[in-house]
């Protein structure tokens, strides 16, 4: 067949411009690549690389975002012959969209129209493209839901999007994109907003559908680990330009361009820390300065002792806003962090790891339990004494764009704790702030800037400087690197390890990213439904996981190595049950088996 030889998509010298305030801004230029029928091509890049613009151009959907294709050809081999998408008229494009090219997007929560039923949204494309009757379209929709393995498909058709979980919605969106058996599926960051187990399910689903139908997949992502798991070929993009292209094994084994090499060096790979006892900074290309690995002091001395911590949030309802139920966010959690040590809390969204961190600082008031910081009982403190206690423990938040006051100069924001805690006066403040900026590797000229003048990574450094200002004993880092691009993430991680090595500060590192956690932590706690299900040294948890949930989690993590593919079978994990319980519900205490010295596993698994 000729089809096997001719590419399905041939992009040649694509150039896309956006209308900016001062003339056109180039979104993408000089981008050329092809997609063969039946292959998975991954386009990978950090934010601003133009990867999404490229995929939207292929559907000619950039126009709706204010963009314009100003040069190049986008040839697509449709059933009716080769079409240049760049110059096709609207009617032709509508006939291709949804019929020959299906597309899925990043946010499953907003990808479906909230006021229409699943049936209506699934059938309208079928009726239009295939000319199916209402009954036939419904039958096909049902068949599609079965194909994407949605439980109780008949019931789902009658439901509205908000009644479905995120993973299920993404399955519906995929079913919709598959409705007319497209030749090409464009997946634009389809798993970025999903938990790791659901990500694994969706990736395996896309893999299976591709195998079954022979369609090609254009997969857009920022995540090198996902690329390694799904790609046949890879296109690396940076700042609107194509950097490198090649088969996935070649890109990972022998990248030709510096940018690709730097990108890969910044990606932590699950399992690469095997056999090492201490965290280890990443070796970044272009930043060869030797960063000291944080070593533990000889005699472990406990700093933070958390016992039986329980935090519940009331669900209010009714006329006088009574409490009608409780969200059991943290349920009988106990652990210790030693001086100079990093304990990581990992788990999926809603598992209570952030609530746990906030409860320790009493930013959320715990329901019961004790928290001792250097033998000082935090829970019993009055509001005034608590404020004083914060001198010893600080927090670094997730969103670098929301954790700095937009109307205050950075100097002021870092100086505030110094003044409030009476740590410095007069000109001393300025010197201390300057020292802190040096400490986090930011130029002193940034001190008089406002947050919006900085990039995300730079802001996160300021947030760290602010936390460091009081010379705390403990820093709680709540998903502090999750919102950052991978190369910036690596730099910030290295900074945190460097600070630990030099200042001996302890970290409670809260994260959903297993590979990052493996890199930075001495000890690891895994959380599930508010409880700590397993805790131990990093080697114990990662190399000999004992709890069923820990194993599930580890098996779902994509590994940034194309020779170690774990995705492939059809995965279907058990959904996480709701943490909302009626008033008065008292779950039993957490009881643990000590399977090895310091390695605790929760009894009564998966209840």
């Amino acid at each position: 067949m000729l089809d096997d030889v001719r590419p399905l998509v041939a992009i040649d010298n694509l150039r896309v411009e956006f209308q900016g305030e001062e003339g056109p801004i180039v979104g993408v230029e000089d981008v050329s690549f092809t997609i063969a029928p039946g292959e998975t091509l991954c386009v990978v890049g950090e934010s601003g690389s133009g990867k999404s613009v490229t995929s939207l151009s292929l559907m000619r959907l950039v126009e709706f975002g204010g963009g314009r294709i100003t040069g190049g050809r986008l040839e697509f081999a449709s059933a009716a012959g080769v079409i240049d998408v760049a110059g096709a008229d609207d009617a032709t494009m509508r006939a291709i969209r949804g019929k020959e090219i299906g597309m899925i997007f990043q946010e499953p929560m907003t990808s479906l129209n909230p006021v229409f039923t699943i049936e209506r949204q699934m059938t309208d494309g079928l009726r239009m493209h295939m000319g199916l009757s209402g009954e036939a379209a419904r039958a096909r929709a049902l068949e599609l839901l079965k194909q994407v393995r949605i439980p109780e498909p008949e019931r789902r058709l009658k439901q509205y999007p908000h009644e479905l979980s995120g993973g299920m919605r993404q399955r519906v969106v995929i079913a919709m994109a598959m409705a007319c058996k497209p030749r090409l599926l464009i997946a634009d960051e389809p798993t970025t907003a999903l938990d790791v187990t659901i990500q694994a399910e969706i990736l395996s689903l896309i893999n299976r559908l591709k195998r079954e139908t022979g369609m090609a997949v254009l997969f857009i992502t920022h995540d090198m680990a996902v690329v390694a798991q799904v790609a046949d070929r890879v296109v690396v993009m940076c700042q609107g330009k194509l950097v490198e292209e090649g088969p996935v094994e070649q890109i990972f084994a022998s990248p030709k361009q510096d940018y690709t090499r730097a990108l890969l060096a910044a990606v932590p790979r699950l399992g690469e820390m095997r056999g090492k006892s201490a965290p280890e900074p990443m070796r970044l290309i272009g930043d060869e300065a030797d960063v000291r690995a944080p070593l533990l002091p000889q005699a472990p001395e406990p700093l933070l002792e958390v016992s039986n911590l329980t935090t519940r949030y009331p669900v209010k309802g009714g006329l006088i806003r009574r409490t009608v139920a409780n969200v059991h966010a943290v349920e009988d959690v106990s652990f210790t962090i030693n001086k100079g040590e990093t304990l990581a809390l990992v788990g999926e969204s809603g598992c209570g790891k952030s609530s746990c961190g906030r409860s320790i600082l009493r930013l959320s008031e715990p329901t019961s339990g004790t928290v001792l910081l250097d033998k000082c009982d935090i829970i019993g403190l009055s509001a005034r004494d608590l404020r004083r206690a914060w001198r010893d423990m600080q927090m670094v938040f997730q969103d670098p764009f929301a954790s700095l006051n937009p109307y205050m100069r950075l100097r002021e924001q870092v100086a505030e704790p110094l003044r409030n805690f009476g740590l410095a006066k007069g000109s001393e403040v300025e010197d201390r702030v300057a020292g802190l900026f040096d400490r986090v590797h930011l130029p002193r000229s940034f001190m008089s800037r406002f947050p919006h003048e900085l990039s995300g990574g730079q802001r996160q450094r300021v947030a760290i400087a602010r936390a460091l200002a009081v010379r705390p004993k403990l820093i709680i880092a709540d998903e502090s690197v999750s919102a950052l691009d991978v190369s910036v993430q690596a730099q910030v991680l290295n900074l945190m390890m460097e600070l630990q090595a030099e200042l001996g500060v302890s970290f409670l590192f809260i994260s959903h990213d297993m590979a990052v956690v493996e890199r930075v932590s001495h000890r690891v706690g895994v959380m599930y439904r508010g409880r700590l299900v397993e805790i131990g040294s990093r080697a114990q948890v990662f190399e000999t996981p004992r709890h069923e949930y820990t194993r599930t989690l580890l098996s779902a993590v994509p590994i940034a190595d194309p020779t170690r593919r774990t995705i492939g079978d059809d995965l279907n994990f058990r959904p996480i049950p709701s943490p909302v319980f009626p008033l008065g519900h008292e779950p039993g205490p957490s009881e643990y088996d000590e399977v090895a010295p310091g390695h605790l596993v929760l009894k009564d698994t998966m209840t």
Partner: protein
Amino acid sequence: MKLPASFRTSKGMLGIGLVLAILLIAVIAPVLIPADWATKMDMRARLSPPTWAHPLGTDQLGRDLMYRVLLGARTSIAIASAAVLMSIVIGLPLGLISGYAGRTTDNVLMRLVDTLLAFPALLLALTISAVLGPNLQNTIIAIGIAFTPFLARIIRGEALRVAQMPYVEAARTAGNSDARLIVRHILPNIMPAVIVQSTISLAFAILAEAGLSFLGLGTQPPDASWGLMIQASRDYLDRAPWTALVPGAAVALTVLGLNMFGDALRDALDPRSKGAS
């Protein structure tokens, strides 16, 4: 300093121009124009259409409409500004406390505000003005009180949103007291919304003052206000429509300017509304 992009549109420029022009008139017209020019009755030229002597015509007593409308600007602007200021002075602490304290305080305050919101603002203002007796000062109080619940609601919403931002939590752990937290971290971040809402409220206050005066329950003669001028014109609409058109246009231009200014301000200050208007 460069103007924000939203002001560099024709709408934004027009808004700035109109607001500046009217503020200028309100400030300097009473200085430049002797007060008796607006009250001098030209008995031979009653209800005169626009002429060289009276560029905008005269009213039923032969008073020059141009001078009256220029001098009326100060009354209308002053009443509206004072009323809005009053609603901010009451509404800002109310909204801040409600949004920051939460729980019972919030429930009680907002139940009260919701109840007040069930009264149409104009009805509330009219009733208060009638109860207190219509005069300039009571007009301010009436409009000020009538606008307060709305403002308090908006400020509460903003305070609620800002209070849970990570930078406020970070500032809390940085050892700031509640008072400092409100003054240094929450207040600056809700000010954009307050400023935008004040501009829009100012436009509504001008309309409300005109409405109140039109019904005789606002500014009282001999003070000249635009609403009063429109009221006086009602009996002469057939013979002298300009007596209504001139003050009507003055109100329209002022409110239009304030609305355009407010729109541009909102776009400039509120990144969330980018592209949405």
